[in-house]
């Protein structure tokens, strides 16, 4: 069974601080996606990483896929209250399990003004 472990589970920081969220697995994934979910809403896709070692930037968010495609990280620079939410990573293994996504349990981020 493929599992994705996210850490930390909870993170509470002040506006302007930097943070890193981790997503780890013992399995290799074809691609990995990061979503942000606000309370009472569905997850919103932020980015997809597909190549080992790949780095993608989305404004103040930097996403990295591990060289072996087993892990990923999300780094937020100068966090703002609008970054508050549940960050989910989801792995996809093309050709396996009919192509569904395996989700981690998420990191709940709170950024205080």
């Amino acid at each position, binding site marked *: 069974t493929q599992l994705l472990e996210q850490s930390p589970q909870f993170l509470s920081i002040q506006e302007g601080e930097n943070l890193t969220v981790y997503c780890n697995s013992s399995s290799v994934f074809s*691609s990995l*996606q990061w979503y942000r979910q606000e309370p*009472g809403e*569905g997850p919103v896709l932020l980015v*997809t990483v597909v190549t080992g070692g790949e780095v993608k930037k989305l404004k103040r968010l930097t996403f990295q896929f591990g060289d072996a495609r087993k892990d990923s990280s999300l780094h937020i620079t100068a966090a703002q209250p609008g970054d508050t939410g549940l960050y989910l990573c989801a792995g996809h293994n093309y050709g396996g399990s009919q192509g*569904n*996504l395996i*989700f981690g*349990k998420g990191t709940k981020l709170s950024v205080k003004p």
Partner: protein
Amino acid sequence: EAEVAQSPRYKITEKSQAVAFWCDPISGHATLYWYRQILGQGPELLVQFQDESVVDDSQLPKDRFSAERLKGVDSTLKIQPAELGDSAMYLCASSLELSFHNEQFFGPGTRLTVL
């Protein structure tokens, strides 16, 4: 901007009653997913459709849950009878096709509370 539509947004029911959720995927998306998300957890797949066919329903509790996508467009998920443990967020997602990346786009969800 194209979005996945879901209704209702909130549903409160008593145990042993029947409930139904509706989902309309992004136009042209052949693959549709229903997920259940318990508070504090990541979404877990219940059922996956490719057009009107079920591709994966291995995690669907078939004694009480059913799902259909008759014309390969919108879909309905039903629970009968509802149990206390079914209280959760039910999410629908769609993707263009079963691709290498499988980027899925989610609707706003239906929050179910079973009393």
